[in-house]
Structures are given as structure tokens and as C-alpha cells.
């Protein structure tokens, strides 16, 4: 338990050192080739999603069946799909959906998970047991089975995907935060604060939150590609985003249907998924190496 208790204390070193040392981690990230590569890919994905309208003037849902299943050309960089839609434009706009869904749902799950985790770790024992029971109950469902069940009940849509991701991710963040909070609650500075009469809200927000948020942020950044693939996977199965909304999963599914005619749509749907997954994973791992000295020392 000694190491577990030491970890948050060590990891405090960088995040709460506010005295002008923020540039150092970024500098270290830049010096790590894998981190630089990951950051580059993430910037590429985010920029292409944000600037979709600038990068391609075409409408992602405009049909022209006469131009169906064309190979890449100057007019259509990734070719066209079975309805003659420009795949490059659809990939760019699909990025908005993928990143939108993942950022919103990871953000929501993180906020709720943080709150509940801190309450469980700091609050009374009965609340801890109750929350743990809830976390474990949700986590005991296989994600995809739970997702399919929820989709059957609520119908396929963007909101349903967000709901599924939030519900299944809260316990993950909640458990991590709870453990960290439990370790912190016995620390002298917390005891001192309590002795001075600080309330629950002040202790949690002012003292616990800054100390637990670092590791979960890294966890969250590594979850982004997972959520992107959940969205793509559900859309691929026909239970996610509704057509004709561009989604990487839908592009992949359409591509799969016509894979015997042309490989381009499958490549167009798969390529951004690979780039996003690699980008966020490399970035997340690199951040973890920087912000988790325990791990760095072991390495």
C-alpha cells in the first residue's frame, strides 16, 4: 500500500506546481518522438474535422449516382461511394461526428465519474459501498451487449451512443478517482484543512480534485479512440448514427457492401480510424510517461 499511497503524492509534483513550470511537460512531450508523432496525428484529425468546410467545398450528403464507386481522382481525392458521394468530404465530416461524440461523452463521463469517485472515496462508508456496487453492476455488463440492448430500447441515434459511452465509462473513472481519493484522505494537509473547519465541498474541490485529475485526464485521452471506435462500430452495425449523416462506421459498412466492386470506400473509412487511434494512443502514452513519474522511474 505504501507505493499506492506514494503515487499520487509523487504525481503532484508536476500538475500542481503552478510556478511557471507548465512549459516543461510540453517540452518533454515534444522531445519524445512518439509523443510528437501522436500529437501531430491528433492535430491533423482535429484540424481536418474543424476545417472540413474549408478543406472540401462539397456537400457530404449530395448524391450523384452516375459517379458511383469511382476511384480516387483530382475531383474526388478518396473516390466516391455507391451513391456517388465524395468520400473525402464524408471522411472529413465524419471526423466531426466521431470527435464530437467522443469528446462530449468522455467529458460527461469524466465529470460525473470524478464527482461520484470523490464522494465514494471521501464520503461515509455506506455511500462508498453503494456507489461501488453501482459501478461494479454497470461494469459487469459486456459493453457491446449493453449497447445493443439500450439501442433496442431507445432506437439508434447520436444521443443513444453518447448515453451508452457515458454510462459504461463513469464506473471506470469513478473507481480510479475513488482509490486516489481514499489514499489522499489520510494525508496531513487534508486532515489539517478539516481541523481548520473546511467543508466537504472545499476539501474535495480545492484539495482532492487537483491531485486526482492528472491520471484520469490521461486515462480519458486514451479513451477517446476507444469511443471513436465504439461510435464507428455501432454505426457499422446499423445501430449508431443514422444515414445519410457521414460517419466513419457507415462509410466502412457501405464500403464493405461493395467491397467486391471497389476497395476505396473501405480504405477511406478505415484510414481515419487508424490515424485517430494511433494519434490519441501515442499521445496518451507519452503524456502518461511524463506525468506519472512512478512509471517513468520503473521504465
Amino acid at each position: 500500500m505504501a507505493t499506492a499511497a506514494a503515487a499520487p503524492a509523487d504525481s503532484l509534483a508536476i500538475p500542481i506546481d503552478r510556478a511557471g513550470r507548465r512549459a516543461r511537460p510540453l517540452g518533454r512531450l515534444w522531445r519524445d518522438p512518439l509523443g510528437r508523432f501522436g500529437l501531430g496525428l491528433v492535430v491533423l484529425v482535429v484540424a481536418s474535422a474543424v476545417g472540413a468546410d474549408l478543406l472540401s467545398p462539397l456537400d457530404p450528403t449530395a448524391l450523384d449516382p452516375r459517379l458511383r464507386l469511382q476511384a480516387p481522382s483530382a475531383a474526388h481525392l478518396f473516390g466516391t461511394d455507391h451513391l456517388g458521394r465524395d468520400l473525402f468530404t464524408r471522411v472529413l465530416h465524419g471526423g466531426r461526428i466521431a470527435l464530437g461524440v467522443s469528446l462530449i461523452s468522455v467529458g460527461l463521463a469524466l465529470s460525473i465519474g470524478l464527482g461520484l469517485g470523490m464522494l465514494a472515496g471521501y464520503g461515509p462508508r455506506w455511500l462508498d459501498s453503494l456507489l461501488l456496487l453501482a459501478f461494479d453492476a454497470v461494469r459487469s455488463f459486456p459493453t457491446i451487449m449493453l449497447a445493443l440492448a439500450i439501442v433496442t430500447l431507445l432506437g439508434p441515434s447520436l444521443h443513444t451512443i453518447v448515453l451508452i459511452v457515458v454510462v459504461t465509462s463513469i464506473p471506470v473513472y469513478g473507481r480510479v478517482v475513488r482509490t486516489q481519493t481514499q489514499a489522499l484522505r489520510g494525508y496531513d494537509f487534508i486532515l489539517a484543512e478539516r481541523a481548520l473547519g473546511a467543508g466537504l465541498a472545499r476539501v474535495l474541490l480545492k484539495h482532492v480534485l487537483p491531485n486526482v485529475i492528472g491520471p484520469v485526464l490521461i486515462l480519458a485521452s486514451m479513451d477517446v479512440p476507444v469511443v471513436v471506435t465504439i461510435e464507428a462500430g455501432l454505426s457499422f452495425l446499423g445501430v449508431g448514427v443514422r444515414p445519410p449523416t457521414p460517419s466513419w462506421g457507415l462509410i466502412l459498412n457501405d464500403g464493405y457492401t461493395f467491397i467486391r466492386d471497389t476497395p476505396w470506400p473501405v480504405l477511406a473509412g478505415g484510414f481515419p480510424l487508424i490515424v485517430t487511434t494511433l494519434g490519441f494512443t501515442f499521445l496518451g502514452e507519452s503524456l502518461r510517461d511524463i506525468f506519472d513519474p512512478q512509471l517513468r522511474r520503473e521504465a
Partner: protein
Amino acid sequence: MTQRRLSRRDFLGAGAGVLAATALRPSGEAADTKALRVRAYVNYEVLDPAYLLGAPEADIMGAIFVGLVTVKPGDTWGWEKDAAVSIEQVDPTHIKFQLRPGIPWTGGFGEVTAEDVKFSYERIANPANKSPYKGDWAKLDRVEVTGSHAGIIVLKEPFIPLWSTTLPRNSSLIVCKKAVEKMDGQRFTMDPGATCGPYRIKKWEPRLSITLERNPLWPGPKPPFEEIQGVAILDANAAEIAYEAGQVDVTHVPMTSVPRLQGKLPANSALVTRPGLTYWWLGMQMESGVFADQRVRKAVQLAVDVKSILEGAFFGVPAASTGIIAPGLIGHREKNLIAGPNLEQAKKLLAEAGHPRGFKTEIGVRSSAEFLSAAQVIAAGLAKVGIQAEVVPYDSGAQKAIASDKAGGWKKMQMHVVRFSMQPDPSWATVWFTSGQIGEWNWERFSSKEYDTLHEQALTEADTAKRHAMYVRMQNLMEESGSYVFLTHGVNAVLCRNTVKPALTPDGNNMLLRRFQPA
């Protein structure tokens, strides 16, 4: 527990071996007279003729049971005698038949007799049994048994579709009275108790395949294939890959594969295409929300461009339809009442109905490529008049459940793109749009007294010209309601090895397995 771990090298080695074996295998070997392997696009779940679910099941039933008559393979619809040595309509309500003696049941249940015929047909007709095919025998009064192998089918009133869709199809297949009577609810799924056709069931593997073998008791000529295997492969792409890998000899392929296959066929293969009988349409429920206003429905009819749907969703393979009754059948309309898209008129109607800027709605479709594509092309067309239609994919079961939900769930699915299967008699199409089908298969909730009356009258109208006019009028009524945009009858395409001579129904929908021959 010891488990042999498959190393990457083992895997690659095994893969290379399989590839080499596939490459070295003489093409066509798959189709010797030992086994015929056909692909089914649904799982085999029911072999009871009274409760048939899908065409591939009907194909298997046709090989293990006999009927009085059976459908003739070829390009035009017709029938030929099967278990009947003689069958004739002595008057509009009496059909006299004589069974071929000496067709034994498997399992020691004796011979196929007139009692079995009576049991089989009256079982379907009896409303208490809730057979989805009770309409086939709706006019049956009784089957009179006049001898061990002779009887008379007595109708309450004349029934014209009898010779086109009842007698030659699954509703006339004969099941074993002694075996089925013992069963719970007098029905079965995959174990018929006894069969009597040229083939009998050897093995059924749920969700995988069914294997038939020659029935040694069959008194007729020995069927050409030692075994027939029906392999359930639900995904169309997987089916084509299975065909190329030599796992099946015959498979239906999607319409969108036709242009590619016509350009480049797999070795030693043939592609048979037949204009379909099924009918696809865009429907709008007419009771709730914006679509309760007929002007809105008419605006949609005017905004939809059927040609672009066929081009986009079906790669231009099938022709546009003019109703629910395909060319070549009585009642086929020459043209639609609405000549073609007219966006200006559509916008005007929408404005009159109080939606000058359109509205938001949903198109519910089955979650498969053709439906999704069709709905997306429709949505793009509707966007031109301001209607924003979102495409909602459903499992086919879920779509039916919503459309026929008694608690009002159907209101959620304002528009739908649907395909219904069809038999070669117009009554098979019109029956689903009667008022009695509201809450079941009449998803538009179309209700017209004139239509209902015409449907009933046409069932007994012997004058072909009059009957034709009745069905044309019924489709006019459907179109005038505004709730229907007829899309196509589709094309059935079958990919088959040169070593097999397929026997298909004229629409290419059913495989008459008994009649397949080695080429």
C-alpha cells in the same frame, strides 16, 4: 486442460495449404451428382407448409413433400401434376382429384392418402390454427374423401387464384395426418414426423445448414443428386465469397452485383436474371401527424424521382413499377397516374397544407444496403422541397413490430420503404392493403370500402378482362390516396455453376430443387 496453441507459422502454413488446395481443385468439382449445395439467405427455421417463413424453406419443403400439383419451372407461370394422377375442376366450386397410389410416408406411417390431403388443406383453412396462409384456402368448404386415394375439394364459392397460387405452392403440400395429429398444436418446425418427397431430411444444423438425401422409399424416378445441402449464409457478400470458394453451387446475388457479374463472371459460371414479382414501394401512414393531410402525401408523390432511386439503390438494374402487380400478371397497370416528379407542384401543395418550408420526418427501413440506399436517395429528393427526412434503420422484425403496434407505436414511423413478396396472382398483392389488414400488414392504414369490395369480388370473378379492370382500379385507388409511391418489382439474379442446370420459378425467386439437373 491442454490446448494446442496455433503459432503464426502454423496459421500461415495452413492458410497457404488451403489456398493451394482451392487453386488446384478442378472448378466444377463442387457440383457432381453427389451433392448439390444451394445457399439460403435466411436460416432454416420452419418446414411446416402451413407456417412457412421464407422462400428457401419453401424450396426445401418442395423436395421433401408432394402436393397435388406443383409449379412448372421456366419463363412462364404454369403447373403440372405432382402427386395427383388426375385433377380437374368439374364446376367452379368442385375440384376432383385422384392420388397416385403407392407414395409411402417415411417412418412407417403408410401411404399418402386422400385423408392426408383433407387434413393438410383443412388445417391451413381453419382460422383457429392461425396459419399465415389461411387466405390461400379462404374459400375452402371441405375436402370430401371419396376413396382411399380420391377426393373432391369443395369450395364455398369460386376462387380464381386456386390454380395459380394455392394449388401449385406450399399451401397444397401434403403433410402426414397420423404424424402431425400427434404433435403439440398440430404443427411442427423442423421435424415433420414423416415426409414423402423424393428427398428426405438427413441432418439439420440450426443456423447453419440442412442436408437432404435421396428417399429410398420414393417410388418415382431416382432424383439426380445423392444429397442436397441448403447452406444458410445471410450476408450477400459472404455468399459470393462462399460461391467462389466452392462451398455452394447456386446462390441468389443482390441486384447491385449484376452489372459487375455481367462484366466478369467467375469461371465456369452462369448468371440467370429474371424480372421479379416482389414489389417495393415508399409508403406513408395516413392517419397521424402531417401525413394525415392528403396534400402532404401527394406532395411527396410528386417530389420523389423513382428513376434516380433505381439508379442509386439498384444500379439501374430493375425497371420502375407501375403498381403492386408485375408485368405479365392480370391486373398489371400500363402506367402510373402521376407521370413523373414535379417539384413546383409539390411545393405548392406543401404550402397549401401549411408547410411552405417543409417539415422534419423519418423514413423507417430494414437495415440492409438496398433499403438504406433507396431511403437515402428518397431523402435527398425530399430535401429539394424542404422535407428533411431522417433514415431510421430497423431489423426487419422490429420494423414490422412498430408498424403493427396496437398501442400507437406506428405513429413513430411516418414513412417506410418496404418490399413484399408475391405469388403469381394479383390477389396476393392486393390482400395486404384491405382495411382488415390495418394493424397487421397495411402499414399505410389505407382504408377504402371500394377497394375492399373489389378485392373480395375479384377473388371470384372468372372473366379475365373484368378481373383485370378490377385490379387496375384498386391500384388507382391506392395511388390516388397519396400514400404510395411504387418503386420497382426488382430482379432476381442467380449465380450458378455451369455443371448444374437450375430449375427456377419464372420470377427466379424459388429454386425447384427436385428439378435441378447436372448439366
